[in-house]
């Protein structure tokens, strides 16, 4: 039987505020254990949390960027559960009145765009880090992350494949980086994805029973976990079993997921309104203020690159797929008269070098203006495209502008006729066989001779002039 996979995601994103959500402790990642904590974020009796205004602004930004309606009135609630990652025995979150609701994000899938519904976006606090030791009987806790602000983004069950889920996470991450509310580093846990997944026979209307998978900290593990869990569920159904609604943990090393609770424990969080925190009112004026502060989003930027810079759809999509890459392109393009050539360099050699070095667009060591100047050197005929690639390699290694590199390495195009004629003569006398072939009408031989002459000049010969001179010399010989 053919099955359809139904996927909904819950994405937790750590906001890049300086201080925590309810106290003034730093949110810096990687400090010594339990040095970024205070009585408020550890829930000591008698303390009073106060909401960080920036958290509301950032969450509303995310909501607006994801086409949500922003609640004029929202409140925070206590979600009660006993687990030592939360010293208060409850997490402050939002239950029935979240800040943002009913949005969507369009993703690119095979065969065009697809709209993925956003059910809600709410604010909450992160929990501490538990360190389990396999052999020990204890668990050690570092509460530094406790109280770091999070938004939780909940999607509709609109995705139908691992690829769609991946595309959604990529789009979402790109948007959040554009609006600059999170660094979205999956490996550091600042963007975490839980996958809700069920399967149903194709054509069936009702959803099957779903499972939830946690602990997915890379795009690759999301894809693998989805494929593995869909396969597992189908196998259970095919063999006459039933799917149990449960939380499963993905083990990326073993490539399998396993049930997280041996005995079925009720998820009864007994939410109630947080009495220590006042409701949040986002009036029209505040909302408009936040809206005005939003930068251009990836989709709008892509369209502008096509209409404004005349780039092909392909170039525009790849460039705007990463904010850093798009920023770099734009900074270079405005300083150059040839945006397409800038784009070609970025999508070609710059991307290749970044890949080879395992670097991201953020890590490009030279200013975008240097790339514009490199393109100009090619356009003016000072260097050839081949030499430009060489200069680019050097720009990644040394802190020098392209003009300086060209000068120091002596890479300017040689357009000196006298010098080139000497080269041509030398090549002709050294390659009698090819000269013979050329006379017999073999065009290939001419290409070979050009290549030899280029080699002789280390790629610096002005190609047009070289062609002309070589032809002239060969004709002379013919006479």
């Amino acid at each position: 039987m053919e099955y359809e996979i139904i996927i909904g995601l819950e994405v937790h994103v750590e906001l890049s505020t300086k201080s925590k959500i309810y106290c003034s402790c730093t949110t810096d990642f990687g400090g010594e254990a339990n040095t970024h904590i205070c009585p408020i974020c550890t829930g000591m009796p008698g303390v009073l949390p106060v909401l960080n205004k920036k958290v509301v602004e950032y969450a509303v930004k995310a909501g607006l960027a994801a086409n949500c309606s922003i609640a004029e009135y929202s409140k925070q609630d206590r979600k009660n559960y006993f687990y030592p990652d939360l010293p208060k025995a409850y997490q402050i979150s939002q239950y029935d009145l979240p800040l943002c609701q009913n949005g969507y994000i369009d993703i690119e899938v095979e065969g065009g765009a697809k709209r993925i519904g956003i059910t809600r976006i709410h604010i909450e606090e992160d929990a501490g880090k538990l360190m389990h030791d396999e052999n020990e009987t204890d668990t050690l806790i570092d509460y530094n992350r406790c109280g770091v602000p999070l938004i939780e983004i909940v999607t509709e069950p609109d995705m139908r494949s691992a690829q769609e889920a991946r595309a959604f996470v990529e789009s979402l991450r790109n948007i959040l980086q554009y609006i600059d509310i999170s660094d979205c580093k999956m490996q550091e846990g600042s963007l975490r994805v839980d996958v809700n997944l069920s399967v149903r026979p194709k054509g069936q209307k009702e959803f099957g029973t779903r499972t939830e998978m946690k602990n997915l900290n890379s795009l690759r593990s999301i894809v693998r976990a989805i494929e593995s869990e869909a396969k597992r569920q189908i196998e259970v159904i095919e063999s006459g079993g039933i799917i149990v609604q449960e939380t499963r943990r993905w083990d990326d090393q073993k490539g399998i997921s396993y049930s997280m609770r041996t005995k079925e424990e009720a998820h009864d969080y007994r939410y109630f309104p947080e009495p220590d925190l006042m409701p949040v009112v986002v009036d029209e004026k505040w909302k408009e203020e936040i809206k005005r502060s939003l930068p251009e989003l990836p989709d709008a930027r892509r369209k502008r690159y096509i209409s404004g810079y005349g780039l092909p759809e392909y170039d525009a999509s790849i460039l705007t797929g990463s904010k850093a890459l798009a920023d770099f392109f734009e900074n270079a393009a405005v300083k150059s008269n040839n945006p397409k050539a800038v784009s070609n360099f970025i999508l070609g050699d710059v991307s290749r070098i970044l890949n080879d070095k395992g670097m991201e667009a953020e890590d490009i060591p030279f200013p975008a203006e240097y790339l514009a100047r490199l393109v100009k050197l090619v356009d003016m005929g000072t260097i050839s495209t081949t030499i430009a690639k060489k200069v680019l390699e050097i720009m990644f290694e040394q802190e020098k502008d392209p003009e300086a590199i060209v000068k120091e390495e002596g890479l300017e195009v040689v357009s000196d006729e006298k010098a080139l004629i000497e080269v041509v003569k030398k090549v002709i006398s050294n390659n009698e066989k090819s000269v013979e072939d050329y006379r017999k009408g073999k065009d290939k031989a001419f290409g070979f001779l050009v290549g030899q002459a280029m080699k002789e000049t280390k790629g610096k010969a002005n190609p047009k002039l070289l062609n002309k001179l070589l032809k002239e010399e060969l004709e002379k010989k013919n006479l």
Partner: protein
Amino acid sequence: MFTIRKGIYMKVTKETIEYVANLARLKLTEEEKEKFIRDMENIISYVDKLNELDTSEIAPTDHVIPINNVFRDDEVLDSYPKDKMLMNAPSKENGCFKVPKVVE
């Protein structure tokens, strides 16, 4: 688990008490369970009295104090010294709070 509907007095069973006790991590004796059945029934029927009133025109009370938007600015201040934070911990190790092993 509980749904309190208008005019219907909730029947508290032993299972209800055991369920709530489990959520609160409380261990109750049989006598205590019996006692709590009666206590909780009293509490619920008392609260149920409110359902006799027509509240359809009254907005839910999300907060008892009529103040909104109490914020702080996004400013970092010094955290507490680690030793002070760990001072009252019944068990600690390597600068961490230590609890019996939990595996989720």
